[in-house]
């Protein structure tokens, strides 16, 4: 295990100390660093919260800020935060207009967010949920509700965050979040494992010349493990599955996110984007908004994912809206 670590037990809390030290615009509630909220909540705005396991920076808490989210609760590495922590965040960010939870489709998170929503409901806080399930590889068409949420949740945050910043109602923000969710698809590929600090060894093993298409961000199995192919062929396979999911017409616009899982250098992400862009071009589909970088990682895992959001006019406007969080800025 080649990590910069002190006692692995303190991995998450030391990381959080570092984050609060570096970013004064973030703060926390309930005397618990894992309950992050923006330092400047906006009165009357719909509150948006997220949460999930640590180890995915800049997911989740990296998107707390202007034009995005109001709060996030994070758990241990790859572990859900507790219902109590989510409830504390919820109480703080509710500005009377209700709160929307946007998080990924994992049983641990669902169970805890459900519990938190129940607790908030007892306080009279209106809480709704939109559960990201963009990972095409994790279940077949028709069983989308079983799919995992991965990097594509970024688009849901972006659209819903912009909608809330515009002052839209909870119902509208839900509608938009759900639309962004339903029009987002992601395919991932992993080249190496990550190491959970408290476990201390690789989560899974993969041959020196192998890749796994469709692997999840905690190392969940994908669709196929095979010999590492040239970058263009990897993207061809991934994009074929993405294209099969939605009816993309000539002239349609999309937003594209090429996401590094942590260990893969930026240079390679741009080589992957190059091919994505060619394939979109061949179909007459325009990549109107593009982000390439690390948006949802698995610590040091080598690999990447491609997320495509099928835009309509409303999503186009919202995705392009400004945002300013410690980890993500859009001007």
């Amino acid at each position: 295990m080649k990590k910069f670590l002190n006692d692995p037990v303190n991995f998450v809390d030391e990381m959080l100390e570092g984050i609060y030290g570096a970013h004064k615009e973030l703060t926390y509630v309930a005397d618990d660093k894992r309950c992050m909220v923006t330092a400047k909540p906006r009165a009357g705005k719909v509150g948006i919260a997220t949460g999930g396991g640590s180890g995915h920076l800049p997911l989740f808490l990296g998107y707390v800020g202007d034009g995005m989210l109001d709060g996030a609760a994070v758990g241990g590495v790859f572990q859900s935060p507790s219902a109590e922590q989510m409830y504390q965040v919820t109480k703080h960010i509710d500005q009377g207009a209700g709160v929307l939870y946007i998080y990924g489709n994992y049983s641990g998170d669902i169970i805890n967010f459900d519990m938190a929503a129940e607790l908030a409901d007892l306080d009279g806080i209106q809480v709704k949920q939109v559960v990201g399930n963009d990972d095409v590889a994790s279940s077949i068409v028709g069983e989308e509700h079983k799919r995992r949420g991965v990097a594509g949740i970024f688009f849901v945050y972006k659209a819903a965050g912009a909608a809330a910043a515009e002052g839209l109602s909870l119902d509208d923000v839900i509608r938009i979040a759900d639309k962004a969710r339903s029009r987002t698809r992601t395919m991932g590929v992993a080249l190496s494992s990550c190491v959970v600090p408290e476990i201390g060894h690789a989560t899974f093993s993969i041959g020196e010349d192998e890749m796994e298409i469709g692997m999840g961000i905690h190392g969940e199995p994908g669709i196929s493990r095979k010999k590492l192919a040239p970058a263009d062929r990897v993207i061809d396979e991934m994009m074929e599955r993405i294209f099969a999911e939605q009816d993309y017409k000539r002239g349609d616009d999309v937003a594209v996110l090429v996401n590094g899982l942590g260990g893969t250098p930026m240079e390679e992400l741009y080589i992957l984007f190059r091919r994505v862009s060619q394939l979109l071009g061949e179909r007459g589909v325009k990549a109107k908004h593009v982000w390439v970088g690390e948006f949802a990682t698995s610590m040091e895992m080598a690999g990447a994912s491609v997320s495509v959001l099928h835009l309509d006019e409303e999503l186009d406007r919202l995705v392009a809206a400004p945002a300013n969080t410690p980890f993500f800025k859009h001007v």
Partner: protein
Amino acid sequence: MDAIKASDLIRLFETWKALFVEQRDFLISLDGKVGDSDLGITMSKSFAAAAEAVAAEGEAAGISKLLRTAGATMARTAPSTMGTLTATGFLRASKATEGAEVLGTAEVAGFWRAFRDGVAERGKAKLGDKTLLDVLDPIAVTLEAQAERGASLAEALAATSAAAAQALQSTKSMLAQHGKAAAFQEKTIGLQDAGATVGYFLIRSMADFVG
């Protein structure tokens, strides 16, 4: 022992704590096969925290209160799927044992019935889905039958432990439908479910404790 007193319960949590220290690596590797390897960590953490919390609270609090403390502590310290489900189980068991001074066979049956119902409601799994529930349900059912026929606590728990062992074996042939294991589909067949293993460990350890 004939019945579990508040002081016994505190010692039982000590036993459970030791159990999961011992089984930590086994559960890590079991969960690692078709999951994310965290189960050994979350269970050892949550039972250690629960054991300390109930010990700190002391027997004077009474059984129901101790169980509530255990559940709340676990929810806080290990909010993984199993962490929250077992926490929910203990919170419901706390409700079910309100007013009980000691836990005899009938009360223990009520304890595990409430535990099972809590897990079922929170997790929304069905029987046969290859989860913890597939061991919890036979536990509750067996204990009720044992209580009905007036079995001693030790007898009842011994029979229940045996039933749980069998139920755990049965999870091998099931196909996982929930959580991280669901992604592994057919690969889960032949493997015993990790959460169900925890359920079995809990009841076996309880049976040994009173036996």
